[in-house]
């Protein structure tokens, strides 16, 4: 087996990974860095983010206001020390991206422009029209090319973390083009692989969002934190699940039921005004808006289409000029994928799985409990997002915690000896396992198992949950795990074997699904995005705590709890629109 050594490996080439890699190179140019990604970095899912990235920049705004919006938006499950670090470092990180050339939208006098966003009491969301993630990712990738300590392993799929002597010392990965299995050894590994929306059937997430980093850490004994909190974005296109950005509502769009009525006024989100009001109505937080949709559907006031129930997102009154200037991608997506022009027609939308608040348990430096292993971005849970992330906080999170993880890993690597030869025995065992998997000759098709998993998750772990539903999904996931041992692959070849990758991704998804379900079962309260119809109230006595899911060799994960860090904002009521 080919073995290569670097000081630090970054697994994942999206926003967090590239920011981390650059941070390492700038902290210590003598460190060698490998960025390993299963896709070319510019294909990473950061590319799909639309609306913007939050950071305080106006004099009328304050770091405390951003922190309070974030903490209350997260229903007090955010660690407030993490939130304080986040809001403090956000402006500098955003400016750095400006200095690297990100094409931020501007005001007439040339300053960076900001727009309102859901759950934010001030305008602080930086944007590059409505392709913010695309521009951030390409700016980061193009900028990263100037750092000579970086080596890119494009289209390499990581299958295992190499852990020996109680520390992470590298990974095993498949080079997709050749099927060659390699060991990449290092003093530190940073996971930046993003989320796992593909656990669900209806998601904004790209096909590549399969929870790889979460599963890698979980299998190495690292706990997954707050996995029960799944964000439904209130406005996805039916059938495709393509995201229609919250910026449509920030610019003044309305959500209407079948009677053309702005129904959010019935759900304690304020009164309808012609112009957008911050922290009210259509600019409420995503969890509350998605929940309101379900209630509205139960009242029979949604619109029935071939692809399920929808409501209407109306931006016609914004006018063609504003739409083309600030929401051109929305217009392009609607025309291309929905065959309608939002300048003249209403957009059918429904809630869609969008983001995982939970992830690999880390501290403020991105360090996991496993020495040598770091994580940042959606794969990680610091936690600044609590039980419900505010729109436009996640792109900023990539930068702030990507950079922190990079710097922390650089410091750690500088004082850590190289990987021990013993890890290679593990690498060889993994190579043999992969060889066996490639010849899998049971009777189950990967796509069938994946579809059954996705349907079970939609059924039992959707916007509203209860014990029987979660239990039946848990049983289904258990059944799928067993059937996953009997997969049949049509493709036995080494060269770019995407079926083998899909098989490995499926086992990652099942690992993550199991953690989500068990965490959801044991959190017998309703908070943020986790709504239990059988436990409808928030219970701070028992559950002002992060769940930690630990993988067990047999059966469901063990769930432990970690108190939430409260610094300055004691738990209170979430108030929107009043």
């Amino acid at each position: 087996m080919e073995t290569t050594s670097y000081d630090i490996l970054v697994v994942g080439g999206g926003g967090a990974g590239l920011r981390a890699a650059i941070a390492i190179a700038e902290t210590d140019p003598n460190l060698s860095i490998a960025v390993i990604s299963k896709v070319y970095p510019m294909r990473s899912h950061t590319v799909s983010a639309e609306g913007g990235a939050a950071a305080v920049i106006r004099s009328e705004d304050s770091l405390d206001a951003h922190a309070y919006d974030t903490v209350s938006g997260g229903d007090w499950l955010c660690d407030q020390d993490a939130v304080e670090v986040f809001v403090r470092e956000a402006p500098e990180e955003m400016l750095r991206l400006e200095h690297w050339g990100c094409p931020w939208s501007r005001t007439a006098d040339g300053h960076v422009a900001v727009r309102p966003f859901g759950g934010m009491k001030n305008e602080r969301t930086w944007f590059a029209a409505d392709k913010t993630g695309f521009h951030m990712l390409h700016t980061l990738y193009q900028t990263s090319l100037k750092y000579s300590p970086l080596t890119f392993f494009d289209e390499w799929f990581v299958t295992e973390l190499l852990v020996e002597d109680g520390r992470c010392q590298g990974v095993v990965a498949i080079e997709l083009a050749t099927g060659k299995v390699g060991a990449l050894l290092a003093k530190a590994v940073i996971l930046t692989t993003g989320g796992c929306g593909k656990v669900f059937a209806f998601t904004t997430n790209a096909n590549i969002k399969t929870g790889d980093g979460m599963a890698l850490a979980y299998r190495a004994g690292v706990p997954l934190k707050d996995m029960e909190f799944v964000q439904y974005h209130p406005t996805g296109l039916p059938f495709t699940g393509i995201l229609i950005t919250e910026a449509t509502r920030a610019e003044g769009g309305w959500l209407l039921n079948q009677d053309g009525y702005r129904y959010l006024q019935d759900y304690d989100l304020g009164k309808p005004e012609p112009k957008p009001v911050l922290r009210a109505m259509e600019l409420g937080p995503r969890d509350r808006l998605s929940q309101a949709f379900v209630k509205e559907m139960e009242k029979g006031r949604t619109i029935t289409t071939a692809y399920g129930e929808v409501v209407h997102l109306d931006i016609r009154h914004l006018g063609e000029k504003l739409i083309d200037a600030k929401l051109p991608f929305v217009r392009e997506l609607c025309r291309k994928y929905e065959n309608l022009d939002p300048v003249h027609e209403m957009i059918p939308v429904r809630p869609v799985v969008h983001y995982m608040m939970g992830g690999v348990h880390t501290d403020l430096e991105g360090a996991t409990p496993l020495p040598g292993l770091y994580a940042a971005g959606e794969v990680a849970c610091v936690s600044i997002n609590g039980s419900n992330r505010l729109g436009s906080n996640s792109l900023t999170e990539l930068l702030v915690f990507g950079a922190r993880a990079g710097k922390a890993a650089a410091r750690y690597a500088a004082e850590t000896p190289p990987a021990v030869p013993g890890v290679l025995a593990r690498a060889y065992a993994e190579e043999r396992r992969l060889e066996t998997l490639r010849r899998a000759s049971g009777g189950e098709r990967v796509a069938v198992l994946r579809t059954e998993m996705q349907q079970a998750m939609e059924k039992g772990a959707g916007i509203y949950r209860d014990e029987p539903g979660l239990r039946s999904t848990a049983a289904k996931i258990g059944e799928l795990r067993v059937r996953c041992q009997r997969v049949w692959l049509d493709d036995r070849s080494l060269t770019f074997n995407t079926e083998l990758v899909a098989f490995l991704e499926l086992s990652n998804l099942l690992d993550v699904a199991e953690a989500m379900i068990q965490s959801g079962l044991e959190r017998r309260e309703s908070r943020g995005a986790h709504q239990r119809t059988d436990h409808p109230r928030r219970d701070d006595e028992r559950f002002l705590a992060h769940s930690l899911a630990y993988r067990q060799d047999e059966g469901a994960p063990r769930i432990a709890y970690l108190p939430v860090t409260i610094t300055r904002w004691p738990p209170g009521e979430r108030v929107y629109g009043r």
Partner: protein
Amino acid sequence: MPETTATISLEVLRYRPEEAAEPVWQSYEVPLRRDWMVLDGLNHIKDSLDGSLSYRWACRMGVCGSCGMMVNGKPTLTCATYLAGLGPGPIRVEPLSGFPVIRDLVVDLRDFIDKLKSVKPWLLRGDEKPLADGEYLQTPDELAEYKPYSMCINCMLCYSACPIYALEPEFVGPAAIALAQRYNLDSRDDGAAERLDILSRHDGIWACTFVGECSAVCPKGVDPAAAIQRYKVGATAAWWRSVLMPWGTR
């Protein structure tokens, strides 16, 4: 999902180097649904008919740039092209032309990555302003100057369409030149002369006949042909200056 009984055939060019030295056509019958893109047809094949078909895809919303292929002989983003618009079929799907094929519909992009890096696609400045001094000011008009060139999703359709890249592999190519131009035209950048030096060393740029195939296939309206043309004009002017005024700065 609405039921349909209509189908359409996809003829896919398969190349499996471990089995055969030459590519072969394979035909698949997929449901013809109103909302399905060519990519949905391929996913149907992969999931239900033949798991051994290999291709790339990720976002399915036309922004990640992964799923470019030849569809009926044209470079096409398959997640943004309806099956129904290509009826009655059969629809021929091949790997992007102009690139070495790794497997089935997967082509080798490493040459582009090297070329992209060669044009220094990052902000080059003589002086770095400290972050504490805030952002570089840039008016909406200044932003508009380079913004179209920043919209490239690296989908490689333009390379596939480019008659020069096919003949002259040294050619930096449309997308990389457009991205170089994206930085050259950015009011915050001072690197235009440096990039011009790099580009004028390559012969390919002079071979471009400005037929504009690259711009015609671009799914994002980037217009690389215009970028190349501006480059040639800029490079010619710089060359004349260096001949006529060798003592002058560029």
